[in-house]
């Protein structure tokens, strides 16, 4: 709570992104010199289908204020259908997380393709704003 009172608090957000679309999109955003908030740390994975729901829950337990997962748009997966099985998993996960009482905006899913540098920077802004509005994460955060 002390952190919340601090006006300078900045959220820590982790993003699991796929190598082929979103990571390339982030590259494009960089090359295009698009500005976006620096709160998000990217973790590159081969595919959004590679994202084990455990990564998300574990990130929350370790004290991340927000988690983003982003992959190729449906139909554009490098592995044909990795993002489709991911979509099913995440649909269930997102519902279940908010059902047990986690703020729905802590965990966000989106699709960003390699050509969407602009969208990538907007996603970063959008996600940071959403998490900022929620304040520091407290639920599920492990304290030693």
């Amino acid at each position, binding site marked *: 709570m002390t952190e919340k009172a601090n006006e300078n608090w900045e959220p820590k957000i982790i993003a699991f992104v796929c190598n082929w679309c979103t990571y390339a999109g982030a590259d494009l955003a960089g090359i295009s010199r698009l500005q976006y908030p620096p709160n998000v740390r990217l973790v590159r994975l081969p595919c959004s289908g590679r994202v084990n*729901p*455990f990564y998300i*829950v*574990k990130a929350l*337990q370790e004290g991340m204020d927000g988690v983003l997962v982003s992959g190729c748009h*449906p*139909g554009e997966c490098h592995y044909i*259908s990795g993002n*489709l*099985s991911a*979509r*099913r*998993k*995440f*649909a*269930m*996960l*997102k*519902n*279940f997380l*908010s*059902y*047990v*009482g*986690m*703020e*729905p905006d802590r965990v*966000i*899913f*989106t*699709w960003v393709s390699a050509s969407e540098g602009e*969208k990538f920077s*907007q*996603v970063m*802004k*959008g*996600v940071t704003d959403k998490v900022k509005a929620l304040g520091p994460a407290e*639920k*599920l*955060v*492990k304290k030693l």
Partner: protein
Amino acid sequence: MENIEKQVREYAKKLLADGTVDVVVGYEGGTLPFQTTPCFITDPDDAKRLVWNRFCSVNLAKYVHDIIFGHKESQKRAKPEDRTKKKVGVIARGCTTRSLTIHLQEKQYDRDQVVIIGVPCAGFVANKKMSVAVDGKEVIACSVVGDSLSVQTKDGGKDVPLKEVLADNCLTCRFNNPIISDVMIGEAAPPMPDVEKEYEEVEAFEALPVDERWAYFTKEMGKCMRCYACRNTCPSCYCKVCFIEQNQPKWVGVGIDETDTQVFQFMRMFHMVGRCVDCGSCLEVCPMGVDLRKFLKKLDKDDFQLFDHRAGEAMESAPTLSVHSEDDKEAFIFEP
């Protein structure tokens, strides 16, 4: 019901006597009045130990998996041509057959390795509810008489309507008759009374404010003492090494830290997506009475509403997360 018990015994005896199966998994009377205990009959003459009543609670599909896998493990050192398959007979109500269906769909063993002795089910008595009905007093004797349960405690006897002590999952059960079976004993059971109300509890919980839901989740998980009885009795939890026991990487701490317990329970339940048959075993075995069903049922509801699937409802109905479709709903995707 007595008639069913008699037929179950006869059929089990026959299966063992003619060598169709190596073992029959069923229930036998326990040492406590309200308990039955899983039993493993190998001698045809022991088939008379089998019982079938309102206290048969634990889902036996778990043992079918255990026996077949234990046997497989013991065959590892045998030459391929000398390896044998274990054939297991099992007394199965609706939920048990749903679990067996999941095992078969997930290619855990072959259909011919299990002989399913289907029985109709009208619900079992939940220990926890019975205990609440008698104010936590020790039950010294109990029996089902017609539509009520007659319970004896130190302070005297009490008759409780069965409906009040039947497990919640039984009251709303859609599949109280076997989905698949090799033989069906007795007449099919009539539908359970509250089938249409199956998601009522979940809907009520969904309507609560987010912090109240979190408070309830925290309170319930706070009861958990990490004995893993829920996981171990669950027929769908058959991983050889559970994520809880992995240490490279270590996913969850072993202590009773509040968040570790929450993460353990959350992730175990999440592994039940499209695989929880609502058999109530985890609730029944939980020594601390954690309300797991409140959460598991949500997964069931979403599974049905989003993907039109119910766990183990039919062999052809593939497990939710093993398939996908181009037009799965994606309202949850964030678009800036």
